[in-house]
């Protein structure tokens, strides 16, 4: 009983730390990148939420921002980038193209990044306003704190399977 309470508290503390130090990896493929720059720049300033430091290596980041259209040809690349990230990790689909393919309903565009990797928060908009992105970031922070991110849930499930047999 006592140990359980301790580990839960510890997890909460760790999640609190995680949600205020999200290191983003911007996977920028299209025009949404302009909007991402706007969010990162001082006017909207994603740094206020502790996510100010884009790392251009997936191995050093824990938030993958899929910014722009994903083509079928890019699918394996995106999957590899996601696989290289260390656990726990989160994914934001930035804009309609990354969420659903947007108006590219054709032979070459993938209908959403979630065809290849699990996405935690979807941002609609073509491109989304910076306010929407900050809103999504706050939603993600809530998710991180509550441990509801895809990788967190998977980790918890695997732990249960290991313990329960």
């Amino acid at each position, binding site marked *: 009983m006592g140990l359980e309470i301790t580990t839960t508290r510890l997890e909460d503390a760790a999640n609190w730390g995680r949600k205020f130090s999200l290191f983003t990896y911007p996977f920028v493929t299209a025009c949404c990148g302009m909007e991402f720059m706007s969010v990162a720049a001082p006017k909207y300033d994603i740094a206020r939420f502790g996510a100010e430091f884009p790392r251009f290596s997936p191995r050093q980041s824990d938030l993958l921002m899929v910014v722009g259209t994903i083509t079928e*040809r890019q699918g*394996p690349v995106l999957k590899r980038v996601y696989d290289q990230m260390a656990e726990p990790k989160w994914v934001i689909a930035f804009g309609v193209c990354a969420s659903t393919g947007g108006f590219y309903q054709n*032979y070459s565009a993938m209908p959403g990044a979630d065809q290849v990797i699990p996405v935690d928060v979807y941002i609609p908009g073509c491109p989304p306003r910076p306010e929407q992105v900050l809103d999504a970031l706050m939603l993600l922070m809530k998710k991180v704190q509550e441990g509801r991110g895809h990788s967190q849930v998977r980790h918890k499930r695997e732990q249960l399977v290991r313990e329960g047999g």
Partner: protein
Amino acid sequence: MARRVLDALTARFGDAIQSTSSDYGDEVAVVRRDKLVEVARFLRDDPAMAFNLPCYCTCIDYLGLEVLTVRPTSPLAVPSVPARPVDDRPRFAMVYELRSLVHKHRIRIKVPLDENDLVVPSLSELWPAFNWLEREVYDMYGVAFEGHPDLRRIYMYEEFIGHPLRKDYPKERRQPLVRREWTDE
């Protein structure tokens, strides 16, 4: 100046030039496939032609094209549009757009191609800029370029089957390389 290039082509190559037109200020010469390289070499090397800028080359798929008939009374009627029957036209046509920075003139070369014999000599030897453009046409339309140094797909992946810009390719048919298992939800 408008028809000078076309007249020179007809005078020199005769039969190899199937037809010429200069509607809307666009000089177009329809060239037989077996004379294409000869014509192209003449256009590039002759000092009076000197086409040194290859603007683009692409392909047209005429499948299912309906010739628009406009009533002569309509204000939209353009008398110079040729009313050609659809059936006897070859399905594909290669299009080369050339420009001369020396003489400031341009010309469009069209090469009709039959669906069952989709081969055309490569012009990438003459204008290296056509190298990647011909790869694009090969990728999107499946035209084989004879003598091309590196004829591979340029946009789509190797595993892709078919040629997506052909009119009979269903435009929403995807050929995914990778999909995830939806077990996390």
